[in-house]
């Protein structure tokens, strides 16, 4: 198992891939696009510095978080966003937590979490439930499950908002960065819309078999529920009759 001190050697550092929601800082959208674009160009040393700064800022703003992380068994968790060319390594327990940037195929983690960047950010900020994601298979966990459960529970105790944390790190540059983020998000959304429109033209939508199947399934479920209820009523009536006749 790796210790937090091994993090520097976890592979080639890449820029910090993260996103942030609008709440608390920016009503104009998340800086996801800005961060993804920035992630491609930031040098390793800057990425490490940003990751560390964000983590320390989070710990200062949420003083119970480092204490709770220290209380967990020492472990390294790899977090691999499906839609980014790299991942993160978070080490915690016993020593102060450390956050690094790693190649997607890096080894040596006690546990690995895989999901889309958006899902991971929503999880971190407490907007979606990890068990529900797990039931739907939108979240893949491998390795030591206890490590992931412990980390999830500790993070879920804190009202974390990445936009707020980044704003704290950026300090007086935060307003300018938010403005750029808004502009970039607008461009990306417009581009995505154009691509989607072009795709619709090139590939007209045919009836989706899975939707039809799902609707059919829902109808059957409703019928079964209704039949079960009627059966229960019938049985209750029968029981009352039997009791009377007895």
């Amino acid at each position, binding site marked *: 198992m790796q210790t937090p001190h091994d993090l520097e050697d976890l592979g080639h550092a890449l820029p910090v891939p993260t996103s942030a929601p609008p709440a608390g800082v920016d009503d104009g959208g998340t800086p996801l696009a800005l961060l993804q674009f920035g992630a491609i160009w930031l040098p390793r040393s800057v990425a490490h510095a940003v990751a560390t700064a964000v983590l320390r800022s989070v710990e200062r703003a949420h003083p119970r978080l480092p204490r*709770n992380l220290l*209380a*967990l*068994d020492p472990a390294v968790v790899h977090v691999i966003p499906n839609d980014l060319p790299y991942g993160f390594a978070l080490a915690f327990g016993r020593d102060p937590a450390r956050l690094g940037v790693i190649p997607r195929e890096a080894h040596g983690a006690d546990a690995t979490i895989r999901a889309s960047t958006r899902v991971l950010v929503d999880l971190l900020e*407490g*907007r*979606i*439930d*990890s*068990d*529900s994601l*797990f*039931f*739907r*298979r939108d979240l*893949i*966990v*491998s*390795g*030591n*499950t*206890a490590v*992931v*459960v*412990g*980390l*999830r*529970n*500790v993070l*879920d*105790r*804190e*009202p974390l908002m990445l936009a707020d944390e980044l704003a704290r790190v950026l300090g007086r540059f935060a307003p300018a960065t938010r403005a750029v983020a808004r502009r970039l998000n607008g461009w990306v959304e417009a581009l995505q819309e154009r691509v989607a429109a072009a795709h619709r033209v090139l590939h007209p939508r045919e009836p989706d078999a899975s939707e039809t199947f799902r609707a059919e399934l829902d109808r059957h*479920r409703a019928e079964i*529920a209704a039949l*079960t*209820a009627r*059966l*229960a009523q019938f*049985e*209750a009536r029968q029981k009352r009759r039997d009791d009377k006749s007895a």
Partner: protein
Amino acid sequence: MNAGALELVCPAGTPAALRAAVDAGADSVYCGFRDRTNARNYPGLNFDPDELVEGIAYAHDRGRKVLVAINTFPPAGDTGPWCLAVDRAAEAGADAVILADIGLLAYATRTHPSLRRHLSVQASAANAPSIRYYRDHFGVRRVVLPRVLSIEEVGALVADTGIETEVFAFGSVGPMSEGRCFLSSYLCGVSPTSEGACAPANHVSYVESDGRVLSKLGPVTLNAFAPGEPAAYPTPCKGRYVTHGRASYLFEEPVALNALAILPELRAAGVTALKIEGRQRSRAYVAQVVGAFRQALDALARGQSVEPHLSALRQEAEGGRETFGAYRKGWK
């Protein structure tokens, strides 16, 4: 809360979940300490004494209650942590403790007579003589009924026992032997009844194999999920076992209890409170489920149908499926 309204009792595994539950409309929130004295003893979960005090203050400031679950069974010669938990709940100003063990009930009755006592589902009291025994000997004011009873049976118990009843309304369902389940002990040495954890995470692993995900508890493979197939908790009761060459759910299918559609019937049966299961789940789950039930209960109180709220929670359900469980059982 209006007289005759169903009390909404909601789970909180963390202080953040407690606040989420209160903000989403819980009437009461139940939680536990960070040790094996409660049946959700998972890493990083639960409250330390200071957090409990803060949580109670948050709830009381908004007119809500906090119930503290101390509902596992002390082993021989080691009752200290359980008694201490009762003392701490009383000192923190909890509105009630939820207990299962007879010895602990006796301790709470003797040491903190004014502290309201609820009987945990872990006590598995499912008939009138049993419930009356707890009521008469330990002053139990409310019983959390096991998930083995039909609505008619719940109604009969309410009439027979004359104490408050709390029934499960949403969440995971087990093989219906609450307080007596040691299944996971056979695979990993601990169970919810002894250590407060069913299929503890440090014994659970997931392995990719031939495009499927295998869920394992200790050395035993419990299930294999094909790509896109909804997954289930890796508990022994929800394993898919091979018998006569065919894999099937022998004990319990991965499905969630959802009583939203039968709230009017539960109210008519005389039920006092509805319990949402899920202290081990996130504050997002708590906010979503509590919010949906709050809206449905408010609609019910206004004399409106709960129909529009029925599909709100399917995404939160284990296996993506819902059931009425025993409430409408056609079997014995």
